[in-house]
């Protein structure tokens, strides 16, 4: 599964479509090859502090997080949502619901790549109606994944409000979308790739920034 966000020559090129969210073993190989020698721009302690701050901000902005629901976008948004929920629960002394929202079927770049495996969507039994949904993802780049998530939410119910939390905002938006909570603003060039590693999925916490080596194909 790639979570690299390869910079591209524009969405028309299938090889550069970013943020494939689903299991695709061959991609993972490409990504690690592409990021060989990537620079660590975010250490585990910084990730921890950023998530703690975001959890506080969510509580503050939502006045104590009544009726909020944290929905992570697979793959790496899901453990981030779980961590944020755990922190918010710790600060407020009660459980904060979290889940997963797979957006694969709503992506606008499906036809640019072979069909991909689907991730899990996990929602609380009471659904999302009337909740303040916070979408959680690792990297915000073009904004296309978030657009897909907004469409997916529409089909699942009618939240009272939708907010967005990301660990890294690397710029280069292609849609009018911004994050409400940002762990780190990371200025990048389109030629660079950002890769988030998390203990739950990769065995360690880190954010890597690297030059893309060769074409992804």
């Amino acid at each position, binding site marked *: 599964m790639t979570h690299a966000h390869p910079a591209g020559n524009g969405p028309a090129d299938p090889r550069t479509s970013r943020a494939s969210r689903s299991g695709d*073993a061959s991609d993972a190989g490409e990504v690690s090859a592409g990021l060989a020698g990537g620079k660590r721009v975010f250490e585990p302690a910084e990730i921890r502090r950023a998530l703690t701050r975001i959890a506080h901000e969510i509580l503050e902005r939502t006045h104590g997080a009544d009726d909020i629901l944290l929905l992570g976008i697979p793959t790496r948004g899901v453990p981030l949502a779980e961590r944020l929920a755990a922190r918010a629960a710790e600060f407020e002394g009660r459980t904060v619901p979290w889940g997963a929202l797979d957006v694969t079927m709503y992506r606008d770049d499906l*036809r640019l790549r*072979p*069909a991909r495996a*689907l991730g*899990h969507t996990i929602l609380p039994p009471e659904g999302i109606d009337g909740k303040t949904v916070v979408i959680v993802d690792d990297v915000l780049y073009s904004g296309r994944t978030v657009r897909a998530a907004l469409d997916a939410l529409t*089909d699942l119910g009618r939240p009272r409000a939708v907010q967005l939390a990301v660990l890294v905002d690397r710029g280069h938006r292609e849609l009018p979308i911004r994050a409400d909570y940002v762990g780190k603003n990371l200025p990048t060039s389109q030629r660079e790739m950002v890769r988030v590693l998390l203990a739950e999925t990769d065995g360690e916490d880190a954010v890597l920034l690297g030059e893309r080596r060769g074409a992804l194909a």
Partner: protein
Amino acid sequence: MNRHLISAADLSRDDALLILDTAEELARMSDRPIKKLPTLRGRTVVNLFFEDSTRTRISFEAAAKRLSADVINFSAKGSSVAKGESLKDTALTLEAMGADAVVIRHVASGAPHRLAGWIRGHVVNAGDGMHEHPTQALLDAFTIRRRLGLPPGAGATGAGRPTSRRGAGRGHAALDGVRVTIVGDVLHSRVARSNVALLNILGAEVTLVAPPTLLPIAVGGWPCEISYDLDAVLAKSDVIMMLRVQQERMRAAYFPSVREYSRRYGLDVGRMEALPEHAIVMHPGPMNRGVEIAAEVADSPRSTIVEQVANGVSVRMAVLYLLLGGAELPGEIR
């Protein structure tokens, strides 16, 4: 995945598991308020049915519509086929109409294979003669996996803790060691052929039980056991799949009488009780109640017959999504 789904035997283990895992995700959609996904918007799926089949056609139709594809139903009765049009001319007509996928059922074994050579779209075999019916085998495997509680893909490790799925083909539960007994008219059954192939790919142990007259000549080469005695295998079956006695395909006397067939090879309550506690009873439908399966068995909690219908839609959605949902990169076309 291949470009077409013509035979279950063409699937690799990873392909088959990808379809089952995708179907598992799609099945969860059925309790959503909006049971529709935008994924195949603007794509056209043609249901080309040269043989009567209501349940398979509406299952494919529901699957395509839930993925927002446009569906055109073409049935041979009352169409130009009745006026003598050849399969190839029909295919070229569909091609000209811009069909992205053709779901075909045909009386002649091999018709989907020929069709695939004539059109640019994807071909899905919905049953060809006495050859194959791969989506039925996939939905049967899906039903077995769900009912026997075998965990789906790597992602489902414990509720409430959604861990990520990392790479297709790793850590998925197949049907390794599951003992499946398929009973009845194997000779005329494309369902049996597809099931033997797919269940074998997924690691299950298949036993065919039928009168010698209803087994194909080449069955010795199939990857399965053969038995002529149903009572002998009941106790060692996790799944028992009853096939329909296909009177319409029988042009000779394959057994002395329906009553005798039913006595030796029908699943009645007594035989059901001889099955292990956890065993399930399957039937691809439509059933001949009182012939291959007793009404009490068909309506018992062990029967998965109604579930199989619901699962059919999820599995066919998965197949259509995986064939049509993505791009075909030049290297992928086979």
